[in-house]
C-alpha cells in the first residue's frame, strides 16, 4: 500500500531548483520562529512584572497587618522601609 503511494509521489529535489525551494520555505519557517522567540521574551517579561507586583502586594499586606496589630496593642506605629515609600 505504502509502496504504491510512494510510487505516485513526484521526485524530491535532486536538481538545481531544490536549493531555491528549500530556501523559500526556510524563510517562512525562520520568520515564524523569530516571531515565536519574540513572543516568548514578551511572555517572560509579563511573568516577571506580575511576580514583582505580587511581591509588592504581599509586602504592603504585611505592613498593613503589623500596623493594625500595633494600633490594637497601643504601641507606637511601626516604621516602614524607606524604599517602598515615594
Amino acid at each position, binding site marked *: 500500500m505504502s509502496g504504491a503511494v510512494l510510487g505516485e509521489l513526484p521526485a524530491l529535489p535532486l536538481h538545481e*531548483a531544490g536549493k531555491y*525551494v528549500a530556501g523559500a*520555505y526556510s524563510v517562512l519557517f525562520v520568520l515564524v520562529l523569530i516571531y515565536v522567540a519574540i513572543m516568548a521574551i514578551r511572555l517572560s517579561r509579563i511573568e516577571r512584572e506580575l511576580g514583582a507586583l505580587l511581591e509588592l502586594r504581599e509586602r504592603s499586606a504585611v*505592613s*498593613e497587618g503589623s500596623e493594625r496589630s500595633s494600633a490594637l496593642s497601643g504601641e507606637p506605629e511601626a516604621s516602614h522601609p524607606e524604599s*517602598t*515609600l515615594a
Partner: protein
Amino acid sequence: MYGKGLRALSIATIAVMAIGLGLVFFYAPLDAEQGFLQKIFYVHVPLAIVALCGFVVGAVMAIQHLRTRDSRWDLRSYVAIHMSLIFAVGALITGSIWAKGSWGHWWVWNEPTLVSFLIVFLLYATYQPLRFAIEDPERQARYASVFAITAGAFVPMNFVAVRLSTAYLHPRVLGNTSNLPPRMALTFVTCLLGIALLYATLCMYELTAKHTRAQLRALRRLTDVPAAGGGRLQTQPRRSRSAAPTLSSTTTMSARTAGRPGA
C-alpha cells in the same frame, strides 16, 4: 478577550499548513515549464496576497477608529499593518529567491509587479516611524489612522494599475487560477488558507499580548495603594515613548467588567 479561541485557531493553522505542505510536495504535479521551482509559488503568492489584504484590513479598522474614537480599533489597525509588513518581507524574500532561480537575477527593476509591491512595502515601512515620531498617544492614533486609510486605498489602486500595465514578465497566478490543473488549484487554495490562518493566529497572539500588558498596567495602577504614613507604593515605572498604541486603563477595565469580546 482576544485569547478566547486562540488554541483552536492555532491547531487549525498548524493542521491546514501541514496539509498544505503535504499537498505541495506529494500531491501537486510538477509544472511543465518551471519544474520543481514552481513550488515556491505556493508560499510566495499566498504571502503576498495575505500581506496586501492585511493592509486593506488595517485601513478598514482605521476607519472604525476615526468613526468611534475607540483606541481598540487603533490597536487592531496597528497589529494588522504590523503583521502585514512581516508577511510582505516574506513575500519579497521568497519572490527574490524565485527570481534568482528562474530569471538568474535577485531583482528586476523593470518589472511592474515587483517594483509596485516594493513601493507599497516601503510606504508601510514608514508607518512605525510615523507613530514613534508623535508623542501624544491620541494624536499618534489619529494621524496613524489617516495614514492607514490613505495607504490602504493605494493598495487596490496599485494592484489595478499593475494589471493594466503592458509588461507581463511576472507570472499571473491569480488571473490564471481557473486555468490551473485541479490538483494545483486545490494545493494553492489550501496554502492560501493556511497562510491566512497563520496571519489571523499571529494577529490574535499580538493582540492578546498587548491586551495582557495593558491589563497589567491597569493592575499596577490599582495596586498603587497608599502606604501607611501617607506615602504611596512605587509600582509604576516611567513609560518611555512607543510606536505601539496604548489602551487606556478605563478602556481595559470597563471592557473587562462588561465581559465584551475584543476588549
